[in-house]
């Protein structure tokens, strides 16, 4: 071993003045590396600050749960010793601690936040905490009876079980509700009953609608791209401009245009009535439902499929098809066995691009989706800006991210990510 090591050391290439060649090479390349780093640095910092850190923060919010333990810091340690299966309420010392915590929290105006946090788990907590907060200043021992006098709910074992469950610094409760699950009587995880399940249905709908939109985009874009790649440069440039034209119009304008086209008093319905296909009082409902979302999204996402397909098809020499024909394949066989396999990289790139855009699409489904056409992103937005349940929004977003990553992994296994060509 030692001998071998010396031999290798002796074999190290050196420059004329004796510095090892590798050292010398690294020195000569250092300047270029530094320059490359400087070119990347601004964008890297920008992405770090505006994109990466917020995402990590959001993901963190989906499990973060420090508010209960921080505000009720006297009660929570005592609660850990309470046996929730005993069938008895916590003892007087705990209620005394709760009274202390409440007085402090009311002064610091934090009791409402705890109430709101626990209200996500069970409606009524917000009101309970507000009410208790108002009356706690005048509370007298014995505390247990006093609390129950303020609100009967303090005598409810379920309330205490819930507070105990959510008193840890981290929680999976957001994920539990994002998966349409809930906690049973003894805190076991059970499925919500049929009528209360929303998110899984939405995830499923988002997934299949995105897949369907991707598929339709592929079906529509493939012939167009083929035509574009076979035409003369002048004609194909003109057609390409037509494909890109939608990009130059605002997304809102395009979506609104679809409303004008598809609504019940819209152009298409008018036309159908005029032709006599549809009766005037039986106009088709094509917008503010699933149809509207699918139609508008296919239109908006189509260029993202055309461009990668076109750029790949343009590189396929026409001689491949001719060769296949001269070798005895008819037009169909030549196309399927020789042309299509060479476009796989473009199909892959286009599908990934459209699918990922579709799965997180927000504006279009919000405008034209109605009830049946909303996607999971609309609910994430709802929890972000209306119900202000950021933890749930973060959990839904994380699940969506996980689904995309899983699909990406599957895609990599089946097609191979190296085969992707974006242009």
């Amino acid at each position, binding site marked *: 071993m030692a001998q071998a090591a010396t031999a290798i050391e002796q074999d190290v290439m050196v420059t004329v003045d004796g510095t090892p060649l590798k050292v010398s090479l690294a020195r000569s390349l250092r300047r270029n590396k530094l320059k490359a780093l400087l070119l990347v640095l601004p964008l890297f910092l920008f992405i770090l600050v505006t994109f990466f850190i917020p995402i990590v923060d959001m993901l963190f919010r989906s499990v973060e749960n420090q508010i209960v333990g921080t505000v009720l810091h006297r009660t929570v340690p005592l609660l850990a010793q309470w046996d929730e299966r005993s069938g008895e309420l916590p003892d007087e010392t705990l209620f005394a601690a709760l009274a202390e915590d409440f007085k402090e929290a009311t002064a610091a105006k934090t009791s409402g936040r705890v109430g709101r946090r626990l209200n996500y788990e069970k409606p009524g907590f917000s009101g309970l905490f507000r009410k208790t907060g108002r009356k706690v200043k005048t509370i007298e021992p014995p505390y247990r009876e006093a609390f129950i006098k303020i609100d009967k709910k303090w005598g409810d074992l379920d309330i205490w079980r819930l507070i105990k469950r959510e008193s840890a610094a981290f929680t999976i409760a957001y994920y539990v509700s994002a998966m349409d699950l809930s906690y049973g009587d003894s805190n076991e995880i059970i499925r919500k009953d049929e009528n209360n399940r929303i998110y899984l249905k939405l995830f499923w709908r988002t997934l299949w609608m995105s897949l369907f939109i991707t598929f339709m985009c592929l079906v529509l874009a493939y012939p167009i791209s083929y035509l574009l790649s076979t035409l003369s440069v002048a004609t194909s440039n003109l057609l390409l401009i037509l494909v890109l034209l939608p990009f130059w119009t605002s997304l809102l304008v395009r979506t609104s245009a679809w409303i004008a086209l598809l609504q019940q008093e819209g152009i298409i319905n008018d036309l159908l009535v005029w032709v006599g296909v549809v009766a005037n009082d039986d106009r088709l409902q094509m917008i503010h439902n699933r149809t509207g979302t699918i139609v508008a999204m296919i239109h908006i996402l189509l260029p993202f499929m055309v461009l990668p397909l076109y750029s790949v098809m343009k590189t396929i020499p026409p*001689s491949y098809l001719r060769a296949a024909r001269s070798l005895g394949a008819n*037009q169909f066989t030549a196309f399927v066995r020789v042309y299509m396999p060479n476009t796989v990289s473009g199909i892959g790139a286009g599908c990934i691009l459209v699918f990922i855009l579709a799965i997180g699409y927000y504006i279009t489904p919000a405008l034209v989706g109605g009830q049946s056409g909303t996607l999971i992103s609309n609910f994430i937005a709802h929890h972000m800006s209306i119900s202000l349940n950021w933890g749930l929004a973060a959990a839904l977003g994380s699940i969506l991210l996980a689904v995309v990553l899983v699909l990406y992994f599957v895609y990599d296994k089946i097609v191979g990510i190296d085969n992707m060509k974006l242009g």
Partner: protein
Amino acid sequence: MASDNKHYVQFVKVQKSYDGEILVVKELNLDIERGEFLTMLGPSGSGKTTCLMMLAGFETATHGEIVLDGEPINNVPPHKRNIGMVFQNYALFPHMTVAENLAFPLEVRNMGKPEIEKRVSDVLNLVQLGEFGNRRPAQLSGGQQQRVAVARSLVFEPKLILMDEPLGALDKQLREQMQYEIKHIHDNLGVTSVYVTHDQSEALTMSNRIAVFNDGVIQQLASPEALYEEPDNAFVAQFIGENNTLVGDIKEASNGVCKVEVNGIVIDALPVNIGAVGGKSTLSLRPERVTVAPEPGSCPNIVDANVEELIYLGDHIRTRISVLGHDDFIVKVPNSSSHAQLKPGHPVKVGWHARDCRALDAPAAA
């Protein structure tokens, strides 16, 4: 129509126009023999590739008939013509291995698996690529890809093989080597081949016959020797090999000799393709057929010249002289003691035989 070996492939009065205004191919009549290696040679835009594409079925003839083995094929789609083709950039399918590329024409013919495997390995051995069956085309060198392309066009035993400048992408040395290989494969298999190139040395090396194309017309169809030694017209003389031209007026023409006056001096020449007496003619003379300082009386044409430039090329000296008012007259002087007498700026006498000086058609109006 009965097929015979002399008329295996026939172009009968074939015309082709892409835009309805210009004829790219003007009335082509061409017979190709069974087992022949015929080259279509010509500058770009001369219509040779169009002819090949019409034969392959990728272009339709605007007028006329194309016959293969007794069958008119104008309306037969390319995949039913049973014609193998080697493309300029090989057109090997990049998503298939070499063996899959070779099996493709057999698979689309619904051939059995064992038969396919046998044929593929046979043809791989034929082009000396026996161990490369599992490689992708991109993993092969240019010459190897070329051989695969040739093998693929042969594997289904086509009636005819077309090659569209197949060696254009290779470097000079490899190109020459491949010329011999393709020639040998042709000699061994005896398959009728039509080869398109703009490289005259390639055409001369490989072909049984060469059709020289220019301006949509076959200028001459002959064996390589005849093409070089006995060009029919000024274009062919100029296009094939190196050539000196002297333009003059026809003074007299009779009994296999004609007299053409060039720059005031009358030259004896062999009438090949001349008009009436009094018209113009192009005299064509190969550089190696000119003798420097000939013995007086040894040849009928001896004229005064002036040495302009000497270029040393090892086995011979390329000498540019001015003679009869033309200063781009090239003489190849063998590298022997005789070249010592040539010095730039010095006068010299040059001579040639009347049979080596072919009187051809008048130069183009330009």
